[in-house]
């Protein structure tokens, strides 16, 4: 039961990565690509947490923590640059 739920979650995450890459390739403006970067960062945090649960190595949670603390930084920098503020 748990294995099939984990497999389903991995499939959903791979679908989300594919959709994010599609928006990154297709997106006509810079803002679309920044939103794709933010989406892919969130999906990667979920994926790292899922890998930590599946392999029972909870040191991997620290990587997801570092991502969660630093993910807003690049999006914030791009937003400030687009508004001529950086």
């Amino acid at each position, binding site marked *: 039961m748990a294995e099939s739920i984990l497999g389903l979650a991995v499939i959903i995450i*791979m679908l989300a990565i594919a959709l994010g890459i599609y928006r*990154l390739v297709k997106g006509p403006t810079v803002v679309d690509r920044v939103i794709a*970067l933010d989406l*892919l960062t969130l999906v990667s945090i979920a994926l790292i947490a899922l890998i930590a649960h599946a392999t029972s190595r909870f040191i991997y949670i620290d*990587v997801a923590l570092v991502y969660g603390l630093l993910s807003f930084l*690049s999006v914030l920098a791009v937003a400030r640059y687009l508004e001529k503020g950086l």
Partner: protein
Amino acid sequence: MMTLLTLVLCIGILISALLAAYLERRVAAVVSAGLVGLFASVTYVILSAPDVAMTEAAIGSGITTVIFLFALSKTKQQPGKKADE
């Protein structure tokens, strides 16, 4: 399942690197270069190297984008080109 996941991540690295090389807008290229670090970091976690992944997350994906954008805002644009917003 893990092999398919690693394949998807490596295709993501390849597409992001190609976009960073071929995009016209400089800000979009910087964003794509940050995504290379993001996918590489998840791949390092799958390859059982969490310390490398943490360093890549902090430096390759976070700080590098900020430094590139800071340098872009300090440089002057070329006289014939349109302003890169």
